[in-house]
């Protein structure tokens, strides 16, 4: 399992009710179900991924976070997880709002556009950055709203959203992001993981 999922699962206590938004083939869901006794649900837009989840015995709804989160009642999950998909939504602000309405807490991870390799790529090559986490060309990427760790930090603060934990991930290294180290973490981490609450 990805290091990212390891970190996410460590943020979730046992026996909680969790919604995985954009759950993909259900790897994180399966892990949480098995190891954390999580009452886990998924929302996934891809039909074939939904089929993979069903084959794993996971409860998944085919749907789109921008349209289909509204059917869930307020605070009906302990945690709502959104892994590396925020940047693909047309209206990320609405999605964050919905995550925090449906979940008591939300765990959001973002590929960091402030990562030094991304910056260097644009600086030296002058073309849209392509990295391990951002493998697509500008014309076929699903990512329409890229942001950096710093952008996300500033965004949640401006919306009066509480940040419980911010983690910077670079390969196997996970470290805590604080105000004092934000500029440096924004440079060295290729992924940010945030535990937030409204």
């Amino acid at each position, binding site marked *: 399992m990805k290091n990212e999922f390891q970190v996410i699962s460590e943020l979730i206590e046992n026996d909680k009710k969790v919604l995985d938004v954009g759950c993909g083939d259900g790897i994180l869901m399966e892990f949480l179900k098995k190891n954390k006794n999580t009452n886990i*649900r998924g929302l996934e837009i891809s*039909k074939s991924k939904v*089929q993979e989840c*069903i084959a794993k*015995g996971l409860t*998944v*709804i*085919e749907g789109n976070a921008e349209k289909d989160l509204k*059917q*869930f009642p307020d605070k009906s999950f302990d945690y709502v997880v959104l892994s590396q998909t925020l940047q693909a939504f047309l209206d990320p602000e609405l999605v964050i709002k919905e995550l925090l309405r449906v979940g008591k807490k939300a765990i959001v991870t973002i590929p960091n556009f402030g990562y030094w390799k991304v910056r260097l790529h644009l600086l030296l090559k002058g073309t849209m950055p392509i990295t391990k986490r951002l493998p697509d060309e500008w014309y076929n990427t699903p990512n329409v709203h890229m942001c950096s760790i710093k952008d996300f930090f500033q965004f949640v603060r401006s919306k009066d959203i509480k940040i419980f934990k911010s983690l910077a991930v670079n390969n196997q290294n996970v470290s805590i992001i604080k105000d004092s180290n934000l500029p440096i973490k924004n440079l060295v981490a290729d992924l940010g993981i945030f535990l937030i609450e409204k």
Partner: protein
Amino acid sequence: MNIESNIKTLFVKTPLKLDCGETINDFPIAYETYGSLNEKKDNAILVFHALTGDQFVTGLNPITKKEGWWSYAVGPNKAIDTKKYFVICSNVIGGCMGSYGPSHTDPHTGNVFGTNFPILTINDMVNAQLNLLDHFGIDKLFSITGGSMGGMQVLQFISNFPDKSKTVIPIACTSSHSAQNIAFNELGRQAIAADSNWKDGTYSSNNTNPNKGLAVARMAAHITYLSKKGLQEKFGRKLQEREDVKFGFDADFQIESYLRYQGSVFVDRFDANSYLYITRAMDYFDLSKQFNGNLSNAFKATKAKFFIMSFTSDWLYPTQENKDIVIALNSIGADVGFVEIKSDKGHDSFLLDVPDFLSALKNFLDKSYIEN
């Protein structure tokens, strides 16, 4: 008709009060089973059939000598694996494959009921079928499933008997018949009534059948079960065994010939009055109305695990109507999964060889059974 030795029948002794106010007593429910009930009696699946289905789900139907209506989905090693599960299906009341219906004799008059048979609802149908659980000594089913009107019965059943099934699989259905659904059913009923042989439903005493009307009803309905794309791909403007159009009203086009054939084989196996009764029951189906407009309340008492499927090209019970059920379940935190299956085969997709559908059904059942 059709009361033959190879129809298994349960005579229900408990009186059943119908929604219309009348009560029926000592009535037959014709059923069939596949596979075997295990010792713990926890492997039973109750399958509900659609408008023109019957209890003969799979294998050879002993009456029509055709393949059972859900042969693609039910059988050894199939999606609903009869090596593993005990499958029960009964003919709905109002039907014409042995269950109590308009072709039976009214004990009070000694005449065939015809349209004197009480009007039925989906609620009446599932209340009648609950008797099958007692008959087999099953306290809780492993699953209930069905497509189209079968799916409506699934929804009504779990609403009426919230702890009687562990899993619930409504397929290509709705919680409330739409104006368009009612319109098509009314077209079928009017076609039957317009046949001079129908005689207000008393045709059996004249030894005639309103076959023309029933065939037209079937032809119209059949179109609603297919998609435009499916029809176009299968038939297009292809001509029926001729080089050019004949400038007449014979079946020039293959689609015409196909529909006429569908109509003609249907009348051999189906009773016109049953068609009226069952379509009426579908039209009256409105589960949210039963709960003062709040569909969620229909499912509040159940802890069952739901899995709902719809089909992209189904315009009779479109995805949105299936999703409305998902939304109602999610809004009360129920355990519900949902997938829309891609298929060009229209509403009939659930009856056909649609691999994504069959594998989803199989995976859901088998994984849920392991966790059982």
